[in-house]
């Protein structure tokens, strides 16, 4: 296994899938000549040419819809949003077309399209560029939502997303592109969607999270270990489909749950998971489920304010202590 960055892992996934299937093409702003705003598509234009690595105008609604139309008639687009924040302009096509065409046509179309791009807060990018929108996208039946947190997951899940016959929204961690990790070299290293992974085994409390926040959770678990608390960290990896069995298993194991997400609490993924746990594992709970999320405010610019509203390992530790009645 080679140690590569999250960015390189994504690049490998794109490269391998484009090699494997001539119907796969990548389209988005700056993906070609510029090699990608975050250099995820580096080298692909030279390798695959202008029909398969397509620089678009700044026109998110238009090229997102283009992707859906291309997918419904049989090819396999990967649509890159420079960030998911800009995809808000394209949500009509993602929600009203991609997520619904199969259902409202009575099953006549497959929509093998992947929408991908970075999500979440970076550093001092202020309110419009710091959002975690996976919970909003996951709200819509008909679309799948994947949020990898490590280089290996980034590669294995992106390959699965591209091969999938349903629309997949793929959320990359903007702060994770330089993260290094071991990634299998295998061309067929595919991680099936809907399979969560225990990133750290533990017995006292379950921290359930996804994406960038797994690193916050793991950091918190390290801090807790010094206090003699053995926290389990479950990485959901995909939000839709949701690995309910893995959630219930960790709840049954520890009986105490802290949920962490980078987005807002209102209608968030943690809200859904909390509802699910009380519906299906009420008797397994020994404490109320607590959540760590971004503060329910638009992201402020000032450094000190930004830090104050983001989820942190300290906050996770605090909530863990509360569910442990300490």
């Amino acid at each position, binding site marked *: 296994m080679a140690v590569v960055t999250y960015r390189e892992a994504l690049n490998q996934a794109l490269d391998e899938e484009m090699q494997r299937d001539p119907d796969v093409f990548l389209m988005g702003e700056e993906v070609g000549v510029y090699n990608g705003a975050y250099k995820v598509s580096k080298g692909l234009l030279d390798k695959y040419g202008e029909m398969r690595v397509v620089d678009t105008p700044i026109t998110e609604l238009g090229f997102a819809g283009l992707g859906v139309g291309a997918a419904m008639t049989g090819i396999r687009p990967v649509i890159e949003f420079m960030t998911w924040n800009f995809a808000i302009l394209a949500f009509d096509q993602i929600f009203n077309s991609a997520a619904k065409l199969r259902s409202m046509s009575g099953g006549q179309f497959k929509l093998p399209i992947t929408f991908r791009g970075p999500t979440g807060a970076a550093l001092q990018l202020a309110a419009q560029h710091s959002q975690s929108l996976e919970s909003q996208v996951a709200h819509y039946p008909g679309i799948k939502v994947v949020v990898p947190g490590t280089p290996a997951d980034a590669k294995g899940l992106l390959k699965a997303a591209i091969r999938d016959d349903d629309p997949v929204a793929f959320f990359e961690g903007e702060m994770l592109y330089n993260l290094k990790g071991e990634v299998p070299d295998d061309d067929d290293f595919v991680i099936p969607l809907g399979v969560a992974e225990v990133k750290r085994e533990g017995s006292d409390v379950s921290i359930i999270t996804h994406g960038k926040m797994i690193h916050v959770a793991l950091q918190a678990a390290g801090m807790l270990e010094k206090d003699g608390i053995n926290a389990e960290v479950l990485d959901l990896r995909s939000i839709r489909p949701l690995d309910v069995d893995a959630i219930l298993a960790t709840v049954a194991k520890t009986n105490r749950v802290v949920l962490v997400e980078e987005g807002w609490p209102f209608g968030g993924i943690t809200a859904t998971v909390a509802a699910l746990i009380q519906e299906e594992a009420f*008797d397994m709970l*020994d404490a109320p489920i607590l959540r760590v999320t971004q503060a329910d405010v638009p992201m402020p610019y000032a450094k000190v304010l930004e830090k104050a509203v983001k989820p942190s390992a300290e906050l996770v530790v605090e909530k863990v202590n509360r569910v442990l009645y300490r």
Partner: protein
Amino acid sequence: MATKVYMEALSPTMEEGRLATWLKNEGDEVKEGDVLAEVETDKATMELVARGSGILRKRLIGDGDTANVGTVIAVIAGPDEDVSALTGGAEVKAEQAPSAAEAPAQEKVAQAAGSDVGQGAAAVAAAGETEPDSAERGTPAEATPSTAAPTPAPDGTSKESAPAAPEPPEAKGDAGTEASSGNGRVKASPLARKMASESGVQLGGVQGSGPGGRIVKRDVEAAMEGGAQAQQPAAPASAEKPAAAPSAPPAQAGEGYRDQPLSPMRKTIAKRLAQSIGPIPHFFLTVEVDMGESMRLRARINERFADQGVKVSPNDLIIKAVAAALRKHPWVNASWTGDAIRFHDHVHIGVAVAVDEGLITPVVRDADRKGVAEIATEVRELAGRAREKKLKPEEYTGSTFSLSNLGMFGIEEFTAVINPPEAAILAVGAISPKVVVDAKGDMAVRQRMRVTLSCDHRVIDGATGAQFLQTLKGYLEDPMLMIA
């Protein structure tokens, strides 16, 4: 502050109630705890008590009217208070009922683990009446003298009728550390509730270590551990428990039992048999008993106690013999809980009584510890009130074994259907003269009776049931053995 009077769930299964008679008129002054009306439930006629004081301003239904549980049926308020908003709104869900009624009810439902105990008992309890909580059984620990025996009543005296209740909310002094909120609800995590229900730990007696005194997993585990240790010496010799004075009220609170986890073989037997017939796999064992000795004993007792008005029936003797036999055969005095077999520490015999609209089984509690005369008196009294529909829920729930006697109808032999979650029921036929051939080969006329035991095969196997019947037959044919 106006008080809504709801149609309360006065029996475990009650969904609606018929208001038999209002005992207070509009305009009457009522105090909290006053009986407002008599309500016919699906099982009995119950008293509906006031949960607030003031003037009974409005009765929203009349005598003979029926209302769903949770419906506002009257309003108590101050003399000048505007109650128009309350009297206008008719349907109110039970969940919105005053917390005094609501909270304990939820508590029990949560703990009952399949037992169908609703608001009825709770409502009565909240009104300060006797509360034999059949759902909230005590742990073995609490059944031991050290923790449960003489629980003093809140005022420090020991009321004869006061149950050794699982620490009634009022008794809790230190609200900061007790797992009880002000309205009497025990605070416990869902997991703690489930564990308590499965293990028999009584949450009311557990000190909560969570925030606000919430009982959590570790607290129940601690209680279970303590209970297991305390139980050990008593377990093998349950029959040797010091008998309480016969006249003592049954120690209903803190009633103990022991859950024996299912062995794989037991589980397989249970599953396969349940698949074969109905939810309860019944089988039936019949034995013929010579009642000569029992009838002679009965005559002597009746003669001796004639001046006290005691009249023992053959059935009373059978109850006594059954209770004594159950002591020797714990597998028959047991219940199927789904994932365990529950052995009851007490022997409570349900006696089927035919009433106008069907059948009800008042319970003779601790029948094994009562004399025949006492049983006779109690059965007569209970049966009388059963026919008048005046039984309280606690008087017809909680039996560990039941008995049905159709001998008075001349029925020679029949099978009875088990009263879940009990594991067996005894069907008693008529005592009639029969010609029998004795051991020496001589023919003689004897008073014979056939009894049939219906068994839940998940709990009782053929041999177990047969051994019980053998013991029972021995007791009835030679009653002296019961005290030997």
